[in-house]
């Protein structure tokens, strides 16, 4: 396990964080939703109208977000709660926020020193797609695209150095 300072110093673009983010997300979906995330073949932008965000502060500052469309968010909620799709109601935002929270927590726990040196904010969830997110991070975001039950999801981490 590498330390946060080693990882930050090794690559200014933070490309070396991608496998950790990938593993963190896959573990959350496997353990909490009972399904496998698979690699997305394309990074083509599609309409992702549910966005969950968790802020990171401390040794690592930034924002981790999980984006998907409403159908995927509803299916995630259904799988997390173990209820039929038509029984899913207002819990969708709560569920996606928890997914984002667990991915962020699992990600930071994979980096030596970061588990205790970085705090997470409560999740924030935005629904709708007609908005621009202006993150004050000063380095490029890293982003992974995956398929959840054949539906695309995007997980990104914007980092303040």
């Amino acid at each position, binding site marked *: 396990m590498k330390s946060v300072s080693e990882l930050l110093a090794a690559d200014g673009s933070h490309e070396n964080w991608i496998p950790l983010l990938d593993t963190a997300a896959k*573990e*959350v979906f496997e*353990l*909490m939703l009972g399904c496998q995330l698979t690699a997305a073949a394309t990074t083509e932008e599609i309409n992702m109208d549910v966005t969950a965000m968790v802020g990171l502060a401390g040794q690592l500052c930034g924002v981790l977000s999980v984006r998907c469309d409403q159908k995927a968010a509803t299916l995630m*909620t259904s799988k*997390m*709660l*173990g209820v039929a799709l038509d029984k899913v109601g207002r*819990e969708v935002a*709560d*569920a996606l*926020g*928890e997914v984002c*929270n*667990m991915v*962020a*927590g*699992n990600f930071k*726990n994979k980096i030596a020193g970061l*588990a*205790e040196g970085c705090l*997470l904010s*409560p999740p924030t969830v935005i629904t709708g797609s007609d908005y621009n997110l202006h993150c004050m991070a000063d380095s490029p975001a890293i982003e992974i695209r995956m398929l959840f039950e054949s539906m695309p999801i995007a997980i990104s981490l914007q980092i303040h150095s």
Partner: protein
Amino acid sequence: MSIRALIVDDSSVMRKIVERSLRQAGIDLSEVFQAGNGAEALGVLKESTVDLILCDINMPVMDGLEFVKQLPAVENAKGVPVVMITTEGSEAHVVQALSAGARGYIRKPFTPEQVKEHVLPVLAGKS
């Protein structure tokens, strides 16, 4: 044996998942109380007795560590085991939680098997 559990988490989805995991672990729940933060949980304990408390750490109003620290002063909570369930996975957090009085620690994400593995010994008084 049938038990009464208090689940404390600011996410209602997570509270439901924890309850389901307890049932999947074969724990017979006669009653489940829920609270969205430590302060609400203290309010529940003023009115009710429980046999087990499962508690998140990061919550608004009163976090899980503060809640656990306040439990010795609550008559209905005396001797009731607390298991933390949280995304905070550092050894420092585990030590803090156990020092504050928690008897178990489960990291999110978790499986029902992990809940069983951590909760059953606590209920049996072995942890």
